[in-house]
Every structure is written in structure tokens, then in C-alpha cells.
């Protein structure tokens, strides 16, 4: 038997198709008779629709249909539901095509279907929409003010919901007796996820059978099938197959049920031809759900010993114009429950107000609530450490939950199962050369150069679970995962998972684990995902659940295969099943190594069933539905070093060190790749990215010229380390790693920038730290007259 594959940096099996241009993304598909949809989108953020005239568009040769919201509503197409409910939440209808009013720039008012994409887009420009523009509101706190423009009749005052966790009176009492308190007013900037593949959907309808097929850019095809079949189109679930082929990144933005998917399905049935829509990037900016957008007042209290006694957090979380699939969960159960972080805070109170505004809906974006919580907590920690005259590393160390205190009940509902926060901090400090960095910082300041050192110690709760718990909190979905492991007569293995890989390398990493479990060559294992027609039910990939939940299901199914194989081997070897051992790729009688059967022998006999136990079913496949006992809790410490040029305000990343603990690594190369990418995205939020609306509700940063993603020379080579603290409740002890980098790096980079600016008296700035913003802050702090122009 070959070496153990888990832990090996195996090259990815996905890559040959991608490096040769042979990937199969949705927009790559062509079908006989295929036609194209283009959307007519509102240029206004808020307007009544007085009428739509389609004659000019319909007169263009090659135009097949102009579809309106009224037509779809009259045909019985329902609105798009949300998947997470809170008590008292307001649920205004969200139709694929609006017909009464537009509520954000980019909302669809009609769809044109034509023989070519060019004709469809030309004709879309000819659809005449008579708008009555209304005043718009884009900022959450402003939407809650009296007299603000009202979006939905169903949500008076634009209030979608309020939510809180913790006891305010107890927290207030701790603040009243605190040794010291700090308070930050924080705006967590709105982000545009910007997966490199724009969304696309292709729908086909078979009239003879009534079956729909939808190829779409999705992280979770079963969720789409359930929402579309049961709620939106009202068709039998088995008459819809949803396929997510190669998907070019998601980061949350491809979880949600989007309008365009409904429109191409409707059009495919109406016209009897396959219909494709692919987003222009300019459409992505105004339709893909955005991330973050919090306005928060956060306060921390400590005692004389510098120990955190209480946190008080009040957040306005902008929902945008409509609720998308998981939006209500993000600023609540993925945010307020994370405010303990790695620390032994006695009491926490968090109150969240979620308004509707005339902006693109906001939902989960890489990290989803946890980066927002980590950012404010780590900014508070640094601010408090500074107030106390304490080194920020020491302040964190003093407040960490200790390894012997697990399981640890936080004051905000979560029970952490394991952790060793100080070990990760110490390793990161050592790798970064922290002491020397502080000395260098002092020396450089004397020379008029300003470097900043920023720490973030984070804790992440991922792999939401168990299903009963998330259901009690409002989820309209289960959070278990399924796996089917199918062994073929030749011993080759197909593994079907309900999770989806869109860059994470599951085809490689999951195959490595199955190869170990079944003791077969890794090249004999193939992972199949992303097709409701082929897999057992699954809830998809988000919230770093694929490894802890999805792979755990695969492991359990593989172990069922081994158990059955032992019974077949026992029969063939005329031994008792309990006397069969599975070692070195063989099933052998314990103590009699020459009496053995190979995996191939067993697989073949399972299918022939010629010489076979009378009480055993033929075949060799197993399904497992795995519902985790708890979340998993990755953690770590990241250290960013930046230099600020006071002449220009430019912030340059100098070095970046991270130590993450995601339990045992399946494929270190892939895990580190996830960390690198996550760090870049978090750095993007801190230094570069912000979705900016003007007063009329127009998105000003609506393309890659104005919305600046990190580029190659914004980053440096990242110094990556790990500690390994296994999760105690899943079969491999694994935890998620997909979001860790993003959760930690925003806070680490932000703390580094503020640390660099401290000599100027700057104590807080809102992200992103653009040169202009940093320069103005320095000027203002210096009280130079040119600060105000």
C-alpha cells in the first residue's frame, strides 16, 4: 500500500483541464437552437414604473420575446424567498422581474430574448420604460430616520428586523464599574465579491417530459432546485435538474437564488429553446449580492488587570433592497455569536438593526459576519492595549481562553470545543520576529519612516451545525451533508458529494482522504459534484463547511464500505468478519497474512455475487448523511507589517505572517493556497475596496477601474505557519480553512495601518485606507491648514 495521502501536498487533479483551457464553465456551453437573454435594468435606485413599451425592441429582427414582471406574475411565477427567518422579520416580495417599482440600480424591469447576444443587448436598449424617479436612501442608518424614502409597504420605516444577544443590563453594570473603557465608531465598508467568472445561466426545457435543466454558476445546486421548484416556479422537484459545472470562484456570491436563473427557465419553456444569459461585469457589480456594510458603535470594558469584562455593540446592518438567501443570518448568528473571539469576556451585549435601502442586496461574502465581528473586536483590543500602555500581544495573551478550559461556554451562545490560542500567537510572533520588528519600528520612526505592526487573533465558527440548532435559530435549511461512495466492479471508486468545489480543490483533497480510508491508489478515486441529477441531496459549499461537514460524510460512507468489504472477505476467506483486518490495501485474516483478498477481489465479488454471503446485499456502495454535533472552531494569529508614506498617504504591505489552526491538514499546498487568497481578499477590504453609492443611489464604483481589487504588486510572499488542534467531534478532527485568511487579515492590516499612524495621533480610521484618506488623516492630525480644502 502506498503512503498515507492525507497530509501530502499532492498536485491537483483539477488543474490539467484549467491550464490547457479545457475547463467547462457555464458560458462555455453552446446548444443547438440556443438563444440569448439580455436584461433591461433600472438606471434609477428608486422609481415607480409607469409603463413599459416593447414595440421597438420586438421589431428588431431576431428578437423572440420581451418578458415583463407582470407577465411572469400572471403566469404564476412567485417571488424569491429568503432562507433564514427571525421573529418579526418583514418579508416584502422579491420578484425576478419587478413590475411596480424599482428599488436598486440594476434591478431587472424586463428581459429580451433573441437569436444572438448582440441582438438581445441591442434590443434591450430599445425597451422604453417610463419611470417616475423617487428619492433614494443608500445608508442603513439614514434609512431608519423619520422621513426617509420608504422602499416596501410591508416594512414600515424600512425596518426589516432587529436582533439582539446578551443581557444589556448586566453589560451596562460591568461598564459602570469598569477600570477603563474604549469606544469605536466603525463603518465596515461595503464590498463587491467579484469572483472572476461572471454569473451565467443556461436553461433548457423538454416539452415532451416537462423537464427543466438549469446549468448555472452555483455553490449549491440543490438549494437552487428546492427554491425554484417548491417556491418560485411551483414545479415538481424531480422535473428540475440543476447543474453547476466548473465555477470560477464564488466567495458567497454564488450561493443565492438570483432573478436571472428564474428568467432563463421561464423563457426556455415559453420559447421551447435553450436560453443563455451571461453577466457583463458591469451587471455583476449591480446584481451580485454585496458583502459587509455595517455601521457600528463598539465598546470594550476592562478591569484593573487588563482583563476584558464586557463588550457592548450596536450595529446597523444594511440589507439592501431585498433579502437574499441567507442575508438575515449574516449580521446576527454569524456575527453577534462571534464577539467573544478568543477571549474570556464575561458579558457581551449586541444589538442589530437591519434596514432596507436602495442598494444591491447584502448577503454572505467570504467570512460572512465573522470578519465584521473579528474586525471590531481586534480593533477594540488594539485600542484598549494602547490605552493601557500594554503591548497588543500581551493584552491578547492576558485575555485568551486557556487550553484546559474547553469545552468553553461563551456568553454569546457558542460552546467552543477546543483551542490553543496562545500557542498560535507565540508561533506567529516568533515567525514574524515581533520583538525585532518593534525595535525596527522605533528606529525607523526616528528617521521619519512609519511602519506599523498589526496583530489579529481570530476565532472562526464554521460548518454551521447541528441542523436542529440552526433550525431553531431560523434556518430554513438543514446543515448536514451527504455522500455516496460507489465502488465499481474493477475497484475504481466514484465519490458523490453534496458540496461544491469552485476553486477549493475538493477533487484532489477529498480523493486523498478516500484513498486512505479504502486503501486504494488515489488515482482510482474520482469526486463528482455539482449535479442534482447525480448526487444525493446536499446543501452545498459556504461557511467553510465542505471539509468538516461534507468530507466527514464521505469518510463515514467510506467506512461503511470497508465494513461491508470485511464481511465479503470473511466469507471468501472462511473466517469471522471480526477476524478480518484491513491493512496495506488488503483484507486479511488477522495473524495469517498470506490469507488475504485485495480491494479489487472484493469489489468484483460484490458485483458478481457468485460466492457471496447469503445474508448480504450485492454491490459495494454506501450513502451517509452526516449531521455534525457542533460547529468547528479554527483560530490563529496573523501579523501584518505595513509602511505608510506620510507624504503621499500610500500604504504598502511589507510582510505578512499567519499561523492558522484548522486541525490536521488534508493537503497543505491547497490549505495554504486558501489562506493566501483569503488574506488577499481581507487586505483588499482594508486597503482598496469599497462599494460607494452617490446620493441618488447610483453605484459609483461599478467596474474594476473604480472598484480596486488587489493586484499582484499589492501583495508580498506570505509567511504561512500552522498549529494543529484537532476538532474533537468529527472523524478526522478537521476544521474549515476557506475563510480564515479573510477573517483575520482585514483586522491585522487595519491594526497595522493605525499602528503606523499612531505617532501622528490618529487612533481610528474607517477602511479602506486609500492614500487620500490616510494623507488627510495625517494632515488633520498635524492640524495643517491644507488639511481642509
Amino acid at each position, binding site marked *: 500500500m502506498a503512503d498515507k495521502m492525507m497530509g501530502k501536498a499532492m*498536485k491537483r487533479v483539477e488543474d490539467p483541464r484549467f491550464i*490547457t483551457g479545457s475547463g467547462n*464553465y457555464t458560458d462555455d456551453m453552446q446548444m443547438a437552437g440556443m438563444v440569448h437573454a439580455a436584461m433591461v435594468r433600472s438606471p434609477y435606485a428608486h422609481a415607480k414604473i409607469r409603463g413599459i413599451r416593447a414595440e421597438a425592441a420586438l421589431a428588431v429582427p431576431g428578437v423572440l420575446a420581451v418578458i415583463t414582471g407582470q407577465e411572469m406574475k400572471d403566469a404564476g411565477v412567485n417571488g424569491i424567498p429568503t432562507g433564514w427567518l427571525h421573529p418579526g422579520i418583514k418579508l416584502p416580495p422579491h420578484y425576478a422581474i419587478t413590475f411596480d417599482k424599482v428599488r436598486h440600480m440594476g434591478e431587472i424591469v424586463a428581459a429580451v430574448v433573441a437569436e444572438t447576444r448582440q441582438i438581445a443587448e441591442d434590443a434591450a436598449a430599445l425597451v422604453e420604460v417610463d419611470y417616475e424617479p423617487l428619492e433614494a436612501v443608500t445608508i442603513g442608518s439614514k434609512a431608519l430616520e423619520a422621513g426617509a424614502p420608504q422602499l416596501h409597504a410591508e416594512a414600515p420605516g424600512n425596518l426589516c428586523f432587529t436582533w439582539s444577544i446578551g443581557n444589556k443590563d448586566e453589560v451596562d453594570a460591568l461598564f459602570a464599574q469598569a477600570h477603563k473603557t474604549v469606544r469605536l465608531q466603525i463603518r465596515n465598508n461595503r464590498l463587491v465579491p467579484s469572483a*472572476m467568472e461572471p454569473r451565467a445561466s443556461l436553461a433548457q426545457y423538454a416539452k415532451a417530459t416537462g423537464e427543466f435543466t438549469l446549468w448555472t454558476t452555483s455553490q449549491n445546486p440543490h438549494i437552487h432546485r428546492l427554491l425554484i421548484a417548491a417556491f418560485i416556479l411551483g414545479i415538481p422537484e424531480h422535473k428540475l435538474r440543476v447543474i453547476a459545472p466548473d465555477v470560477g470562484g464564488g466567495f458567497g456570491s454564488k450561493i443565492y437564488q438570483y432573478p436571472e436563473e428564474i428568467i432563463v427557465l421561464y423563457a426556455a419553456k415559453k420559447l421551447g429553446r435553450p436560453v443563455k444569459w451571461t453577466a457583463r461585469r458591469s451587471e455583476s457589480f449591480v446584481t451580485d449580492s454585496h458583502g459587509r456594510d455595517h455601521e457600528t458603535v463598539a465598546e470594550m470594558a476592562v478591569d484593573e488587570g487588563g482583563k476584558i469584562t464586557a463588550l457592548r455593540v450596536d450595529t446597523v446592518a444594511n440589507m439592501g433592497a431585498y433579502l437574499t438567501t441567507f442575508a438575515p443570518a449574516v449580521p446576527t448568528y454569524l456575527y453577534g455569536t462571534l464577539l467573544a473571539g478568543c477571549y474570556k469576556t464575561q458579558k457581551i451585549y449586541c444589538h442589530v438593526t437591519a434596514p432596507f435601502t436602495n442598494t444591491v442586496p447584502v448577503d454572505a461574502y467570504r467570512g460572512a459576519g465573522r470578519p465584521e465581528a473579528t474586525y471590531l473586536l481586534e480593533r477594540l483590543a488594539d485600542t484598549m492595549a494602547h490605552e493601557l500602555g500594554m503591548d497588543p500581544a500581551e493584552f491578547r495573551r492576558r485575555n485568551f481562553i486557556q487550553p484546559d478550559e474547553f469545552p468553553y461556554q461563551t456568553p454569546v451562545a457558542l460552546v467552543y470545543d477546543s483551542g490553543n490560542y496562545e500557542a498560535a500567537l507565540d508561533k506567529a510572533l516568533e515567525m514574524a520576529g515581533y520583538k525585532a520588528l518593534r525595535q525596527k519600528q522605533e528606529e525607523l520612526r526616528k528617521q521619519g519612516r512609519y511602519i506599523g505592526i498589526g496583530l489579529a487573533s481570530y476565532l472562526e465558527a464554521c460548518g454551521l451545525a447541528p441542523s436542529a440548532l440552526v433550525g431553531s435559530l431560523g434556518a430554513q435549511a438543514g446543515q448536514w451533508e451527504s455522500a455516496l461512495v460507489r465502488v465499481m466492479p474493477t475497484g475504481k471508486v466514484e465519490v458523490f458529494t453534496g458540496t461544491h468545489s469552485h476553486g477549493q480543490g475538493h477533487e484532489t483533497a477529498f480523493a486523498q482522504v478516500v484513498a486512505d480510508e479504502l486503501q486504494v491508489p488515489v488515482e482510482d478515486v474520482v469526486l463528482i459534484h455539482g449535479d442534482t441529477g447525480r448526487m444525493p441531496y446536499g446543501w452545498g459549499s459556504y461557511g467553510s463547511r465542505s471539509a468538516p461537514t461534507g468530507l466527514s460524510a464521505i469518510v463515514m460512507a467510506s467506512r461503511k464500505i470497508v465494513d461491508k468489504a470485511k464481511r465479503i472477505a470473511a466469507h471468501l476467506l472462511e473466517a469471522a468478519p471480526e477476524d478480518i483486518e484491513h491493512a496495506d490495501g488488503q483484507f486479511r485474516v488477522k495473524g495469517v497474512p498470506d490469507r488475504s483478498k485485495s480491494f479489487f477481489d472484493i469489489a468484483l465479488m460484490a458485483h458478481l455475487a457468485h460466492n457471496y454471503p447469503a445474508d448480504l446485499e450485492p454491490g459495494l456502495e454506501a450513502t451517509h448523511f452526516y449531521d455534525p454535533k457542533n460547529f468547528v472552531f479554527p483560530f490563529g494569529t496573523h501579523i501584518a507589517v505595513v509602511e505608510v508614506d506620510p507624504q503621499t498617504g500610500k500604504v504598502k504591505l511589507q510582510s505578512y505572517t499567519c499561523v492558522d489552526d484548522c486541525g490536521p491538514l488534508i493537503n497543505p499546498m491547497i490549505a495554504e493556497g486558501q489562506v493566501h487568497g483569503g488574506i488577499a481578499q481581507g487586505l483588499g477590504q482594508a486597503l482598496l475596496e469599497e462599494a460607494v453609492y452617490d446620493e441618488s443611489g447610483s453605484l459609483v464604483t461599478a467596474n474594476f477601474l473604480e472598484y480596486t481589487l488587489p493586484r*499582484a504588486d499589492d501583495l508580498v510572499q506570505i509567511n504561512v505557519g500552522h498549529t494543529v488542534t484537532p476538532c474533537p467531534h468529527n472523524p478526522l478532527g478537521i476544521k474549515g480553512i476557506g475563510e480564515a485568511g479573510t477573517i483575520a487579515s482585514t483586522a491585522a492590516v487595519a491594526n497595522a495601518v493605525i499602528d503606523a499612524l499612531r505617532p501622528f495621533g490618529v487612533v481610528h480610521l474607517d477602511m479602506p485606507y486609500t492614500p487620500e484618506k490616510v494623507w488627510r488623516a495625517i494632515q488633520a492630525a498635524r492640524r495643517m491648514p491644507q488639511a481642509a480644502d
Partner: protein
Amino acid sequence: MAEKVKVRITVNGVEHTDEVEPRQLLVHYLRETLGLTGTHVGCDTSQCGACVVHVDGQAVKSCTMFTVQAEGSEVTTIEGLGEVGRLHPVQEGFWEMHGLQCGFCTPGMIMAAADLLNKNPHPTEAEIRHALEGNLCRCTGYHNIVRAVQYAAEKMAGRSPVGAAAQD
């Protein structure tokens, strides 16, 4: 609609003659007319670089060029750069060093990197980062892309670089 124009373009060594709309972008000719879907479209402002191909030996964002402008040109796309078993060193580098995740930016990134190494066979890290400024990747943080290009440079210099997998 404008009248179609006849073009003759050699793509990956094969000469094609087609009637195209004058407004058609080269990337759409490659993807839709020729079915070479390895070249991707990631934006509509020529910012992302997912559509980079080589035209007469130079890296070009194929969304910045009309098909008719490529009349008489030799175009190389990712499909023509190399294939499994006969990979270009840059393709090999991306595989060996985990220079890709979702794969969407990868063809353009590889074509841009190959162009860099044609012009500068021994780039520094800073030169690599600068040369790839026109190509966006949202997955990798560029860390392993830089290493992939360094691997390819080594390989093209006749040395035997060690891949990420073998280093473990």
C-alpha cells in the same frame, strides 16, 4: 446591423476564413465562432486580463481588439500553448506550484506570464508582480502565481525546479 466582413486569421497554427461583424471583439470570435472557450471574459473594461492571448507573438487582451484588426495575424490561445504531456513551462509551473484555484483567470494569467518570460527570461519577483498587474486573480493572492512564473523561468533556463508537491 453592419455588413459582415471577411477575415483570414491563423489561430494555433490553423488558418481560418470567416465572415464577421466589424464590431465583433476578437475574444468573441475565438470563443463563439471557433469554440476556443479557454480564453475567458471576466470584465468589460479591459481590467481583468482573463482574455489575454498572443497576437503575432505579443500578449494582447483580446477584448481590446476587433476581430477584423487581427486580419492576417497569427493568434495563439491557451489551447495552442501546450497540452497535457507537452505542457509549456508556464503551464507546468502553474500546476506544480498551485498557481490556480478556480481556474478562470488562469489562461490569461498563463499567456501574460509566457509573454513576460519571452521578453525577460530571468525576471525578479518585483518584475513578475509588475508584469502581471493587468491580470486579476481573486483566489490565490498571487503568492503561488509568482512562484509558478519563477518555476517556469528556471525550467526555461534548462534547470530542474522543484514543485510545491515535491518540496513537501
